[in-house]
């Protein structure tokens, strides 16, 4: 049926695939562990969380070792895998580490969470889904093909919908359904946009030359609209406008550990793909009639809207997790800024911001979860606990200051760097929209301060209500984790060069 020619080409392709297999060992381990945990649970039902978490940890450790081997063995030529589906870059390797770190933190935080232990959800499924999500994230970080982007995003999304419902009460179902509906909608929109893009260039591989030339030849407005639609799923993942609507409800209703995970890992992956995507689309000038529009203009508008909406909505929140949800929206806007800047400094500052962002978020959610022992998630119920537990209070203070972006925390350095990148972009392009974004973004810190400060305000400025609420137990493990998460936030402010020197290598 096939010509001889074709057969030899086929065997050639199969050999390439076999060669590629070496570079996805971490992902294979994750997939294997995902299946393994499900099987284990079938054989031994009701294993305690401790054991299952330990096994998961083993898998994560093994994956981390394999990722490290990739880092060591990495050669620039070994870039294209599976006939152009994946591309392994140092940045992808670095963020694979970060994803594994996020999963580990989530597993630990879930084990620590009282509410989670009380409702006794099926632990095995919980961990298995986390691992599946990790697999999706790993693939997403490496994807350079629209189909792969879409599929790995779906793996992440599907796992998310289920994890969001893990309290199994009405509130959680509501949050999860909302998440599912918005998610399905945005992924539908994304698919539509992708199919248009495919129509323009006849290839799915965004790093392909044909992709760029195809887009450059197509009508400007058509590409702009199609590109925006294709971004939808990613904007949804990073909860940027106009796909942010799910964020507050899901954050409020889902287990804190899961929320902390949602706020970090998928967001990072989403931003990374967006970065890739913008790099390609940024090369093209779009002409709408006589007006020249750039891809970054679209991103800049989205960033401005997202920052303003997130910050101002957060002002009215009285619930800690809801407030953090709006803060996550606002931060999504800040994460778009390096994409708008689209220069070398932008890339480095984005990586810096993301790294710091992981620590800030896990710090914040860990603290919120600790406080939930004595208070519900209402910020008001934090009254006076800062004086009773100064170290905890101090931790909150540092994390909130870092989220606001004030010195002496790495949160400030991150902001300084992204806004420096943006200023530089403005200097070279003289695009007034960038200046607007620059000023709006910086001045929004005042708004951000107001709501972030609410937590230290209640912790320190209000007396502990008498009689005191139930006892707050803080274990040594909590302190250890908090120090591990919070110390770098301060350290990297004073020694920014250490982290930046490493991030610089991730070209």
């Amino acid at each position, binding site marked *: 049926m096939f010509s001889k020619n074709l057969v030899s080409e086929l065997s050639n392709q199969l050999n390439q695939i076999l060669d590629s297999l070496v570079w996805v060992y971490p992902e294979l381990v994750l997939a294997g562990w995902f299946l393994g945990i499900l099987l284990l649970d079938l054989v031994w039902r009701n294993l305690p969380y401790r054991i299952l978490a330990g096994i998961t940890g083993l898998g994560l450790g093994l994956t981390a070792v394999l990722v490290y081997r990739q880092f060591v063995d990495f050669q620039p030529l070994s870039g294209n895998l599976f006939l152009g589906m994946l591309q392994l870059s140092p940045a992808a390797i670095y963020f694979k580490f970060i994803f594994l770190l996020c999963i580990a933190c989530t597993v630990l935080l879930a084990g620590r969470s009282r509410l989670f232990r009380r409702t006794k959800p099926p632990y095995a499924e919980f961990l298995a889904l986390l691992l599946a999500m990790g*697999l999706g994230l790993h693939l997403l970080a490496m994807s350079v093909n629209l189909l792969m982007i879409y*599929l790995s995003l779906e793996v992440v999304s599907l796992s998310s919908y289920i994890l969001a419902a893990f309290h199994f009460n009405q509130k959680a179902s509501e949050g999860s359904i909302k998440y599912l509906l918005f998610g399905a909608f945005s992924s539908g929109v994304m698919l539509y946009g992708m199919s*248009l893009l495919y129509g323009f260039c006849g290839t799915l591989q965004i790093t392909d030359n044909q992709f760029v030339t195809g887009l450059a030849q*197509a*009508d400007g407005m*058509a590409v702009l609209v199609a590109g925006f639609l294709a971004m939808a799923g990613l904007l949804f993942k990073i909860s940027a406008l106009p796909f942010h609507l799910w964020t507050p409800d899901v954050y409020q209703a889902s287990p804190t550990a899961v929320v902390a995970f949602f706020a970090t890992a998928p967001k990072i992956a989403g931003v990374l793909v967006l970065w890739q995507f913008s790099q390609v689309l940024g090369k093209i000038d779009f002409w709408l009639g006589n007006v020249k529009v750039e891809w970054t203009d679209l991103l800049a508008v989205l960033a401005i809207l997202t920052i303003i909406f997130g910050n101002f909505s957060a002002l009215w929140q009285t619930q800690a997790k809801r407030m953090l949800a709006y803060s996550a929206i606002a931060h999504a806007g800040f994460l778009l800024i390096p994409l708008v800047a689209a220069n070398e400094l932008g890339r480095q500052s984005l990586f810096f911001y993301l790294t710091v962002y992981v620590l800030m978020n896990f710090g914040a959610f860990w603290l919120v979860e600790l406080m939930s022992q004595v208070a519900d998630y209402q910020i008001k119920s934090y009254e006076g606990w800062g004086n009773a537990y100064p170290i905890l209070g101090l931790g909150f203070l540092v994390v909130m200051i870092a989220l606001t972006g004030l010195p002496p925390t790495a949160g400030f350095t991150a902001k300084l760097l992204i806004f420096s990148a943006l200023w530089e972009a403005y200097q070279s392009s003289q695009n007034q929209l960038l200046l607007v974004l620059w000023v709006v973004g910086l001045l929004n810190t005042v708004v951000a301060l107001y709501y972030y400060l609410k937590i230290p305000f209640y912790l320190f400025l209000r007396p502990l209500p008498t009689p005191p609420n139930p006892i707050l137990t803080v274990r040594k493990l909590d302190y250890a984790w908090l120090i591990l998460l919070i110390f770098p936030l301060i350290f990297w402010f004073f020694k920014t060069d250490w982290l930046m020197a490493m991030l610089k290598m991730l070209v």
Partner: protein
Amino acid sequence: MVLLLFYFFCFLIVVSAFLMLLTRHILYAAFLLLLTFLGIAALYALVGADFLAVSQVVIYVGGVLVLLLFGIMLTHQPVGGQPSAAPQTESRNLWWGALTGIGFFALLAQVIYKADFTSKAWIVSAESQKRLLNNSSIPHLGANLMTHYLLPFEIIAILLLVALVGATLLASRKS
């Protein structure tokens, strides 16, 4: 002739999908969905994607939809019964919604019109190569699935497993 068929099936798809949205009766909606699926299968067949057309019929019409109908019939009131009560939330912003929808549709229509797909170089060359192929697309699908699209194929397996786990989990946990 082909063009006429194309418009006929398009009409079928759009009308049935639209009616599906409007009807309050879930069983009717399911039957209308059947029509939509069939129409889409026909469109696949028209562009020469024979395997896809057959799969569409077998999987969606024969599998998914039949399951759906079973589910509805087993859980829902019989045909002819009163449709369930009005939805609890009122629909606000009807006009704004309609306006946005129509506006968006107009935008997309303009995009597709402006995109001018038929003159795209790669489509033109694909059109010319089409005649060189045999009548069936199955060998190429098979080869591609095992080479270029091997990884997506495997990932879909994981994706489906995740969905399966999730579905059983949520269903079994319903209090």
